[in-house]
């Protein structure tokens, strides 16, 4: 597959000295270079300050950029922490294969956690609704995985431009022993001197790409030639439109409503999550350059396609206080 070849070439860049020398493209534009250096500084601070850090890996573009930053920050060592994917069992099929190919090619430790209780109960976004599904399979699953792993720091790909409650998020966001986020206990952050201390059972969520925008992420992916899940590129795919959201029929678990027939449309995704909760956009962007151009002109925000943000005013913030990333 084309994507597999791209991943193999990418992995060689970290292992094969000749590929490394060739891989050196033109220098990053100054604004991206500054954002990259800031993120690398934060990742190293996590590695040096915590006993058992972990990097959350959702397979999306932001996660894949974070992985790339970690590969650069610690090279020639591999990142000194595992990656963790909380699998909702409703991911796009293309995401699982991307994750496994990337893991094998890079030789990194990606752990996959499923909320088995939720799976046994057959939690399903179509039957139980997006809110319950997300809470059980994502939020609870994440909390289980963090507790089981005894992780004292979890690195996430949150960005301050994503959603209004994120504009006030710290780079090092403190969580109490119940993984709770209390605005009163957040610590002021001066310079780049981060207070990394936590007590027993307490932990930190860390956001190294806080200061990036969606456009920065794409420009960086393009400049650094980072492979991403093919669903980000436009292609003709089977779709239905439901409640103004353009859904892709990724497998036969999508129950068609009376009168609904999947239609082939040229679409791509700006963000990837559970396929029944993730809206596509109609697009002609087939290359990274196309995507960057599309992003530079876009007039809608990235999370517009996310069903869970529509669960009420402040809904993202509530999920965050419950422990969602």
């Amino acid at each position, binding site marked *: 597959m084309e994507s597999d070849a791209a991943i193999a070439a990418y992995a060689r860049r970290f292992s094969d000295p000749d590929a*490394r*020398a060739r*891989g*050196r493209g033109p220098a990053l*534009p*100054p*604004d*991206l*270079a500054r*954002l990259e*250096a*800031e993120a*690398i500084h934060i990742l*190293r*601070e996590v*590695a*040096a300050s915590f006993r058992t850090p972990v990097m959350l890996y959702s397979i999306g573009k932001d996660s894949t950029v974070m992985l790339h930053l970690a*590969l*650069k*920050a*610690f*090279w*020639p*060592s*591999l990142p000194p922490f595992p990656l963790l994917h909380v699998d909702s069992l409703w991911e796009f099929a293309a995401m699982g294969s991307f994750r496994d190919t990337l893991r094998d090619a890079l030789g990194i430790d990606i752990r996959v956690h499923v909320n088995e209780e939720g799976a046994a109960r057959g939690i399903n976004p179509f039957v139980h609704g997006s809110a319950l599904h997300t809470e059980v399979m994502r939020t609870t699953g994440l909390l289980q995985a963090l507790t089981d792993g005894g992780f004292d720091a979890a690195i996430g790909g949150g960005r*301050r*431009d994503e959603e209004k*409650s994120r*504009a*006030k998020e710290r780079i090092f966001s403190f969580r109490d022993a119940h993984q709770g986020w209390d*605005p*009163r206990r*957040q*610590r*002021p*952050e*001066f*310079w*780049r*001197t981060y*207070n990394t*201390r936590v007590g027993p059972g*307490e932990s930190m969520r860390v956001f190294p790409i*806080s*200061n990036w*925008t969606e*456009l*920065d992420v794409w*420009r960086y992916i393009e400049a650094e030639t980072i492979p991403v899940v093919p669903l980000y590129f436009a292609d003709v795919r089977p779709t239905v439109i439901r409640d103004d959201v353009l859904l892709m029929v990724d497998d036969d678990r999508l129950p068609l409503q009376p009168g609904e027939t999947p239609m082939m449309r040229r679409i791509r995704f700006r963000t990837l999550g559970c396929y029944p909760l993730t809206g596509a956009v109609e697009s002609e962007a087939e*290359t*990274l*350059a196309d995507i*960057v151009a599309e992003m*530079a002109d*876009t*007039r*809608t*925000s990235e999370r*517009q396609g996310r069903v869970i943000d529509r669960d009420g005013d*402040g809904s993202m913030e509530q999920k965050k206080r419950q422990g969602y990333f």
Partner: protein
Amino acid sequence: MATALNRDGVLRLITCGSVDDGKSTLIGRLLYDSQAIMDDTLNTLATDSRKHGTTGGEIDYALLLDGLEAEREQGITIDVAWRFFATPRRRFIIADTPGHEQYTRNMATGASTADLAIILVDASKGLLPQTRRHSFIASLMGIGHIVLAVNKMDLVGFDEARFRAIVAEYTTIAERLGFAGFTAIPMAARAGLNLASPAAEMAWYDGPTLIAHLESIELAATDASGPLRFPVQWVNRPDAHFRGYAGTIVAGQVKPGDPIVTARSGKASKVARIVTVDGDLAGAGPEAAVTLVLEDEIDISRGDMLVSPESRPAVAQQFAADLIWLDEDALKPGRSYLLKSGPLTTPASVTLLKHRIDITTLDERPARTLAMNEIGLANLETTAPLLFDPYTDCRDTGGFILIDRYTNNTVGAGMIRHALRRASNIHLQPMTVTQAQRSALNGHQPAVIWFTGLSGSGKSTIANLVEARLAALSCHTYALDGDNVRHGLNRDLGFTDADRVENIRRIGEVAKLMADAGLIVTCSFISPFRSEREMARALVGADRFIEVFVDTPLEVCQSRDPKGLYAKAASGELRNFTGIDSPYEAPEAPQLHIKTQEMSEADAAEAIITWLRARDIIG
């Protein structure tokens, strides 16, 4: 395919002012004009403006900066919100800080990373006390570029004379604070006048618009021509053949062949390689996050700093710094906090608070403590040598945070002025007789048994019994208690919170010396604060510190009242008495928890002896 945008970098700025000055409107308008606001957000904004707006149905840009639900519910404000916008030339990050109470803490946080401050003034009101306050904090935090934004010019009929008068008045403030200069721009933010495009209404103004100014100032936040400062964050050792030092260059630049020294030990080497995934670099400058390989194997760990041999940072344990207090729990001089400067963390305490600054008048006032949002000048002392430059030379190596050892909160931020002279004259005397030798001679391990509890709880009684038992077992002991300490060593101290901290610090130091001498020391002090007990534990060393909580209910202590102190406290004759009008923070995880209601004093003493035996402290 080349990246279409080639912006020259990221400018970080802070806006200072309140909603009344049009701060939110200014930020909202900057985001709007630079198209940082997407259509779906704008649709919501239009609806919200009709519902909650204060602009009579027109778009209310201030609503873009809506707070969190948690803030509205709890009636609090979170210190800084970060807003992004970009022009084709540059990326911008705005630190948006709420303008009311807690302003000092919030503004200082946002200002710590800012390259530029916009000081907002309402043209119809002129300079206010807060203008001076904002300018002082901007100067303290070392912001290099100041913009005086004279807003709401529409309210004064776009009058040039009014603008000139405000600028003239501000010049005196700028001179007093030592700003190299400032740029004044007349504007009307709501209508977008002089933000992105020049305003015909103010044709008399021939300076740049705000955006043009923000796009054109030098981005040299850190000096590339200065001496190298490379704090080592992480040592990269994948195998025996590679040892690299990972970190961010905070000042100066580096290339292979450059001589360097380690700031702490003064060991010299040369830079062999600057390693990246994509091949070695020929050089790197400020802000670069790199991995350096040296020509020689020298012992370097996190917290050390690689620097230019010809211009080294200060290495000292005592220094003077401006301090901003951030926590509800006020500064306690003498209390041991953790100081973090770059990657280096060391215990530190304030040895002298010289004065507090009244930030409205900028006058110095005498002070014994700093409450939240207060700023003062202090002498500090660290346990390990600190590597630093004056803050005015380098923010990264001159700034530090203070962390409470118990709550782990960030309680203070400091900007170092200079080392204190006596620091360089005190050197640790290396010991020739070791701790292990002393223990072998004594036949037991040293220990500090720390009894904490309310007055009258039975601490001294149990401590006496323990000491008698130890003496019978041929152990070398000494007892410290209020009577032999308060009358001598600490007779200059009273019972305020600050004095209690100093009391315990001195006792901790004495107990440590005695433990170093090989003794088993019993300490009987109310020691009401967890932080001070933690400080004593840290001083003595956790492995030989035994915290014994003598737990007797307050009513029982009051009825015993062996020294008649509770009666005095009840009558108001004695102030700051623990349990009455001063708090007691019970230990959460003491090594031994003695509940005197359930156990006799002799049994308690025996339990402690058993505990010491079980851990091989005594035979």
